[in-house]
């Protein structure tokens, strides 16, 4: 199945191995960071819920500075 790469097999396969490893690492780290942040935010939001709307409103206002308005 693998084509005959001749004397350049090491160079070609090495290029693919390094590139795929870097791309996969980038995707995995991005997904992991995203999931970790989502979980942490959900925990803090759940913890802050009984405190009433004040915390949410203030956080919304602060987070709203991110884009000028609105909740995240």
């Amino acid at each position: 199945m693998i084509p005959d790469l001749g004397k350049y097999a090491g160079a070609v396969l090495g290029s693919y191995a390094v590139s795929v490893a870097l791309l996969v690492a980038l995707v995995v780290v991005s997904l992991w960071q995203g999931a970790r942040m989502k979980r942490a935010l959900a925990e803090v939001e759940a913890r802050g819920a009984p405190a009433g709307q004040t915390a949410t409103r203030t956080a919304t206002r602060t987070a709203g500075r991110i884009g000028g308005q609105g909740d995240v």
Partner: protein
Amino acid sequence: MSIWEYANPKKFMQTSEVLLPWVTGLALVCLVGGLFWGFFLTPDDYKQGSTVKIIYLHVPAAIMGTSAWFMMLITSLIWLIRRHHVSALAAKAAAPIGLTFTVIGLITGAIWGQPMWGTWWAWDPRLTAFLILGLFYLGYIALWAAVDDPDTAADLTSVLCIVGSVFAFLSRYAVLFWNQGLHQGASLSMDAKENVSDVYAWPLWTCILGFLLLFVTLVLLRTRTEIRSRRLQALLARERSAA
């Protein structure tokens, strides 16, 4: 309907949530399809032999390494001019992706250069500018991490991004006006008299599209993470002040 609506974090989160599965799917199809096509179904080049297969990684990675910086330049300018936080966060989110593409471009270029040029590296204008661009990526990421106040960090990194754009420009166009060095001109160009053969060009375009879509996917994903992180910091600050 204005494009500035997407500067609202809530609107960005809603829109990106809908877009992400589609862009991710398209990126996977183009990347896997393009690389399979290029690696398994194209012949060896009469001069370069099987090393021509490195083109499907090297060229898209190098193009996206510089394009990511130009995207960061645009979003940084939007931050500086209009103070939209999502714009600054999108630039921050794009930097590690651009750095990865740049590193892939440098490594695959060195591996390809050794058998074709007889050297892993040459202080050629294009290569040198690309290496400096990679160092600018590192500096940009380090600067974001070093400054506590997010608005100040966004200001400083935006200025750094403007300065680094010189090297992003040089790494792409140096061969056009610096008639020296080992690196050849563009492999694909609308106005060139001679481009790579169609048998290589079509899978190459597919890979370029795949890298572009992967970049969009990861920028959306990482910007969502940055927005959540900013909201988390705001909530924690509120908790601390209430305690």
